[in-house]
């Protein structure tokens, strides 16, 4: 590429700085320049303080030291999500990073668990090492020994998204990213409709060859300027509001996120080193803002230390994430409630796919089509999995849950549920979240037992199977006993108070 290629990122939230960090790391500075525009007046929404294990790969690919990252972002480790009250009001289960049990003779463990269902009262998730560690507030990194229990799980982080953005801002600027402070007054277009530049209120004009819209819900370029339509998924995902508030840090920080179901929504708890993120996600149609805030505050164990902040959203996504010479990443591309911590993952996958399909000059339809196909698939996978939590409920204690239980669902999810009910399996796919183990964790955790399971699992006599299951539980306990407490693992990477001031005070989402 002979001509210099100028990339302009609009928005300095987590998605914007993740994009800047990755592009500045992977694109040759002799050929590319990256400029990020952010306004100190516009708050960011630090969505996604709970993450998925994929974020580790993102950080590693940028050469970021894990210890530095944990110290800078006040991160704690995450092994699972706890879901109290989802199957029914009194039930609870964990969705771990890793599977429960191990296949026997090539048949997935859950079929054996189902065949034992009448004879065993041990919940399915108890056969997961990640869950056993989470329940006992323990944490160690998985080992790299294949076929060992100690390697049977993965981990992610709870992090302060604002601090993560600040950390990546420093990383990016050291690698040549230009940060411009200012508010966009006008988006300038070529006659072709391509974006030519952004005019700031200061009068400064930033031109570019390619634009990345990380402007959040406003979707200033892709949505407002290029007019890419928004697909509304609210018929399946009723919640359209959230209230977030921080509380004091927990003494004994659990290595898992909690997502507790309420009468008309759910409440998160994300333990960081220096504070605890809390919030309630609810549907305005079924719960008033006042009621939501009261519910949230009455269910926080620690002292609240910030003002509750309210957020409105529409679940869904843009019809395409990439149009003309602009790609939207993060909230400007779509929004899914943070029930399964997918927000940062979706930003990450968009950034990685963009680098995979990085456009030529001019932008070609092949890279654009490939990017849009991949991102569409990723969003739909996440959407279906989140809807699953609402649909696979046995709660009928409120109009909200009654609606969820009986609502029509997307065809793709309907087929998965029919397949599960008929065979005890779900279809696996190579592209996109989530693996079958995640589906089984949620379905079985919420008490959705299939009509049939693989009858080959019945070939092991019940007594032998009970013995095998008990041996597995003992082995898990034995491994867990030697794992240090989560608190000890965090203490090796204490949050650096000097870093506190790095993140500008912005609206936090948790």
């Amino acid at each position, binding site marked *: 590429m002979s001509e210099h290629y100028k990339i302009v990122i609009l928005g300095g939230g987590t998605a914007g700085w993740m994009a800047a960090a990755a592009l500045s790391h992977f694109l040759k500075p002799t050929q590319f320049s990256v400029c990020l525009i952010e306004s100190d007046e516009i708050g960011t929404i630090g969505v996604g303080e709970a993450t998925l294990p994929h974020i580790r790969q993102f950080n590693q690919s940028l050469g970021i030291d894990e210890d530095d990252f944990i110290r800078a972002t006040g991160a704690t480790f995450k092994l699972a999500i706890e879901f109290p009250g989802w199957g029914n009001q009194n039930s609870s289960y964990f969705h771990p990073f890793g599977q429960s049990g191990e296949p026997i003779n090539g048949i997935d463990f859950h079929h054996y668990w189902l065949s034992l269902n009448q004879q065993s009262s041990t919940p399915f998730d108890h056969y997961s090492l990640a869950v056993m560690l989470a329940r006992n507030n323990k944490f160690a990194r998985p080992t790299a020994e294949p076929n060992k229990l100690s390697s049977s799980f993965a981990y992610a982080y709870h992090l302060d998204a604002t601090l993560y953005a600040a950390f990546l801002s420093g990383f990016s600027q050291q690698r040549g990213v230009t940060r411009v402070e200012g508010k966009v007054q006008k988006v300038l277009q070529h006659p072709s409709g391509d974006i030519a530049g952004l005019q700031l209120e200061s009068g400064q004009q930033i031109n570019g060859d390619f634009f990345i819209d990380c402007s959040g819900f406003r979707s200033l370029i892709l949505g407002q300027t290029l007019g890419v339509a928004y697909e509304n998924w609210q018929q399946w995902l009723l919640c359209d509001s959230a209230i977030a508030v921080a509380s004091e840090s927990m003494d004994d920080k659990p290595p898992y996120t909690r997502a507790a179901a309420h009468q008309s929504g759910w409440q998160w708890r994300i333990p960081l080193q220096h504070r605890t993120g809390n919030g309630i996600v609810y549907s305005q149609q079924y719960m008033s803002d006042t009621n939501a805030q009261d519910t949230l505050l009455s269910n926080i164990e620690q002292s609240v230390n910030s003002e509750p902040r309210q957020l409105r959203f529409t679940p869904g996504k843009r019809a395409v994430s990439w149009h003309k010479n602009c790609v939207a990443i993060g909230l400007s591309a779509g929004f899914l409630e943070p029930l399964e911590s997918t927000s940062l993952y979706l930003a990450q996958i968009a950034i990685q796919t963009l680098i995979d399909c990085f456009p030529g000059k001019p932008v070609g339809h*092949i890279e654009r089509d490939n990017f849009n196909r991949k991102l569409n698939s990723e969003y739909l996978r996440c959407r279906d999995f989140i809807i699953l939590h609402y649909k696979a409920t046995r709660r009928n204690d409120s109009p909200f849950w009654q609606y969820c239980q009986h609502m029509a669902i997307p065809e793709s999810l309907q087929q998965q549920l029919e397949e599960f009910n008929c065979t005890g399996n779900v279809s696996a796919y190579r592209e996109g979240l989530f693996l079958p183990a995640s589906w089984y964790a949620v379905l079985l955790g919420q008490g959705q037992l299939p009509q049939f399971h693989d009858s080959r699992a019945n070939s092991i006599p019940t007594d032998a199977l009970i013995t095998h299951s008990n041996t597995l539980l003992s082995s898990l306990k034995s491994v867990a006993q030697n794992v240090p407490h989560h608190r000890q693992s965090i203490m090796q990477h204490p949050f650096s108070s000097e870093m506190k001031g790095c993140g500008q005070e912005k609206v936090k989402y948790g």
Partner: protein
Amino acid sequence: MAEYTAISNVVVIGHGVSLSMMAALLGHGLTRHSKTITVVQLPDMANDCDVVISGPEFAALCDILKLPIEQVISHCVEGFSLGMCYHKDQRSWFVPFGNMGLVEGAAYFNQGILRALKDELLPELQWQHLSLAAQAVSAGKFAIAGPKQTHLQGPLQYAVTLNRQAYRALLQQIAQQAGIKIIATASITPTYHETGAISDLTLDNGQIVKGDFFIDCSVGDRLTPKVVDAIEANQPSIITMSWVQNTPVKHQFGCQHLVSTPWGWIRQTQAKDKWHFYTVFESTQWTASQVESWLSEQGFSDIERLSVATLSGEALAQPMQQNYLAVGKVVMDLGELVFSELVVVQQAIITLLDHFPINNNWSIHNRIYNRAWQVVLSEAEAFIDLHSSHFMVRGAKTTLAKNLVARFGRLGSLPTLQYDIVSESQWFSLMLGLGISPKLPCHYLSNISDTELQSTLSSLRQYILNIVNGMPSYVDFCSQVIPNTLHCPLRRQEAGSHG
């Protein structure tokens, strides 16, 4: 809610090695789980070739069936291949079954090769230099990675040419050891329920075989009662033709060869003392006699025609209907230019075992199997598409092939595919061989300097050459593992073109 019942009786009909393969794999996978499997064996096809070619999944299959691979090789194997060597317009290139380089799944390794080629970082570098399989074949060498050489198992994936009768007998033996009953009959007459499901089969001696689920491995598709949906109708008929030649062919051993012709490709496979040929062509463009005349003009002699058959040109998109599954027909539909009968039947069995109908909720099971099969089919057809005469003249015909070619030609990468019927290295090498090279660079490698890349690839190339130097010759390897090889003309043919 409808009440469904578990499937316990499975009936498989058909003939030949497809039937035996299905019986052996189902026997291994199902009989110890209280399923009764009855195999109804129909008369063999008269024109079956006496060898059958596996794909690179052969070793994994032996592992699944707990077969001692040495024994299978000594009893059934007549030749080995590490990939396909293509010959077109005075040019040859190699498409290995195994991965490029030495690390399976190494991220962006292939893109590193593309950059080195584009920027000419190494003098006279060809991508084949970084394939252990290609270098082994080029040097006339062959080896199977041992159990402790796990790092070589990926790059040295191999297929085998099997003696049809011997392999079939071995598979039948496995099936019978698993408790499967095999009944021979000259004909079958299915009886259908009002729903369209099959209730039983009447054999030529009047015996009635009942079952819950029926699998048809016959080429003739004996069970489907009606015309089924096809993916592509109204295509010109495809003629397949196969023959053997006893005269040695001056080709390298250790791989299959695809030789370009005016109508497409001829596949040439060595098995002991013979070379087996197979080709496909469109009936609107060529006739069998024209093809034979062309072969004669090209100096092919001493050939013995084995078969000429017509494919429908339609691929069966819904092979499972009600309680029956057509395996033989889907095998036949794809032809055997790049996927052998064994590869396709194995893929159908893998798909079946992944989605085995455990009860009679047929609408769900049909949908699950057929949806999975359609994806397998689309990936297989895309690969076949790149070998068609249509592609040579007008480009790819199937949507997936069009997308893959367009993406590779622009970005040098491929999207994630759902199945492994074609490996990434096969796609990569075929695309490059066909002259498709990417326009845009891979930015994930921008942090690696030219010098680093040069040094890494150069060391790797030397390391591969060292490994190849330590391998036995193909002929010596065969002499050691296949009985009677020394008496066959392999030695005489040893002077293959090791270019």
